[in-house]
């Protein structure tokens, strides 16, 4: 064999060995969780207009009925606080509906050891409870107490913005049942949606919970005093009956 032929075959060998690595590079082996399911053309979020909340817990009840959570376990509820300005006589109530914040940077998702909890393209954070191993790592990682172990399924459970209802054009149970119309859900990608317009109109007054955690929550509050955006331990008197 003359040398040029040998050289050609050698180069062919190198080329084909290299080619075998191409599919590996194209496969883009992921090193961080990726969003899946849903449509990237939407970004669902909720605005809670506290000026309209009366603390009736209709959201708590309708969610429990819609999502069939076990007794004593809730995906949403309304906290209630009695507040007095120091040195003044009058007392008022602060109501704080709580639910999953469907963060843009959700700390619960990357910790999941089996990728059972994931964020959809439309921003909704969900749990595949047929895959979840019930390790509760996500429960620990959520800064908002929004997750719990459902003792019927023995897997992680949380608010899904009633995605099964959204997908067929219905409102989430809590929004549907809200007596004062305090809960507003919508698509941030649509500038004409009510939520997008309200967020724009009240830009300066909008608050989120624990902004210092860098989670970029997508449940926004209108009419919430800054006192309530950070943890209350040590700053508020716990319910009268508790001793710590």
């Amino acid at each position: 064999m003359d040398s040029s032929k040998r050289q050609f075959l050698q180069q062919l060998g190198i080329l084909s060995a290299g080619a075998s690595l191409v599919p590996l590079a194209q496969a883009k082996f992921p090193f961080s969780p990726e969003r899946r399911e849903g449509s990237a053309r939407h970004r669902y979020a909720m605005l809670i207009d506290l000026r309209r909340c009366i603390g009736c817990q209709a959201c708590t009840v309708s969610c429990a009925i819609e999502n069939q959570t076990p007794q004593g376990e809730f995906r949403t509820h309304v906290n209630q606080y009695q507040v007095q300005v120091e040195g003044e006589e009058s007392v008022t109530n602060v109501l704080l509906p709580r639910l999953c914040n469907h963060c843009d940077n959700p700390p619960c998702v990357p910790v999941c050891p089996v990728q059972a909890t994931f964020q959809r393209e439309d921003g909704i954070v969900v749990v595949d409870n047929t895959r979840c191993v019930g390790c509760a790592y996500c429960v620990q990682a959520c800064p908002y107490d929004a997750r719990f172990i459902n003792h019927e399924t023995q897997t992680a459970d949380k608010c899904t913005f009633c995605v099964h209802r959204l997908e067929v054009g219905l409102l989430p149970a809590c929004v549907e049942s809200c007596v004062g119309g305090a809960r507003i859900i919508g698509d941030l990608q649509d500038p004409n949606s009510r939520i997008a317009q309200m967020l724009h109109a009240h830009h300066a007054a909008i608050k989120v919970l624990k902004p210092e955690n860098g989670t970029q929550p997508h449940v926004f509050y209108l009419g919430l005093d800054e006192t309530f955006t950070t943890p209350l331990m040590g700053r508020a008197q716990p319910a009268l009956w508790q001793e710590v």
Partner: protein
Amino acid sequence: MTHSLLVEEVLTRPQEISWLPWAVQYFFFIGIAACAALFACVLHWRKSDSAKLENLTLLIALTCAITAPLALTADLHQTARFWHFYAYPTPWSWMPWGALFLPLFTAFLGLWFLALQLKRFTKKSYRATKWLALASALTAAGLLLYTGREVSIVQARPIWFSYTFPVAMFLSAFHTFFALLIVSLRGEPALQRKLALWQLWTLGGLAFVVVFWVNGDTLSGVAIRDWLTVSASARHYAAGWAVLWFISLGLGGVALFQPLTMPLRILQALSAMALCWLMRWTLLIQVQTVPKFNAQFNPYTLPAGTDGWLAILGTFGLWIALLIIIRETVNGFARRMQHG
């Protein structure tokens, strides 16, 4: 904020404790097993010719390394789905690294232990043994790293969110391992003294790390100080740590000058184990009672069933049973070899 508000929490939902006492048992046993494996590997590679010490160390390591993963799988609420860890590999989360390291660690340790017994009975030594020792040590380091980081990356529980967490876990486990080794030795006062000295060093290191952690100007340091200020039970746990630390220090100090009697060595091992266990209990279970947002603490009482006392007693019982079974099996073989 220009106004000061007096806030009373009238209605809220406390959060349930979702990492159970099983997790405490896992962290307790895996820490000791990993430290024992590291120590045994050093013994093996330095060819220090103390086969007895290596044997004892491996016995501690192996029994703990069998108990720990059983406790861990019980902490999963869906135990039967443990195979999902292998079906859906997720390298960016710390937890699934445990699914990789744990079985390898226990397998390497088991083979190493077997190789050592074969050498003892057949006088045949295998070259692979030293590589088994190294592999055990490497997986042990992986376990110490992953268990520590899995907890200390959780910013939502700021008390955990510190690089000192894994170091404190490591040092408390190492000091307990030394105490266990001392109590299992027969005689050998010089060795006992040396081990007591090492135990004291790890105790000193532990105190330094914990003081540094609590006083640190970090998210974690501030959160710990807040907890101690608000909660009387947190102060009780801190007092418990201090008392057990001083007992361990005192007994270790005496052991430097004269070999301890058996009851005192048992007391030393018990106080070391109690300190190691109480640290894990406080950090893993009690920290979950600290609310993430509410003013109200999350209530917790230790139940009697499988997720409570039974988990704790059961795993300790299993460990003791394994110690007896493995030791007696090996001794039984030894007797048979002696008498033909």
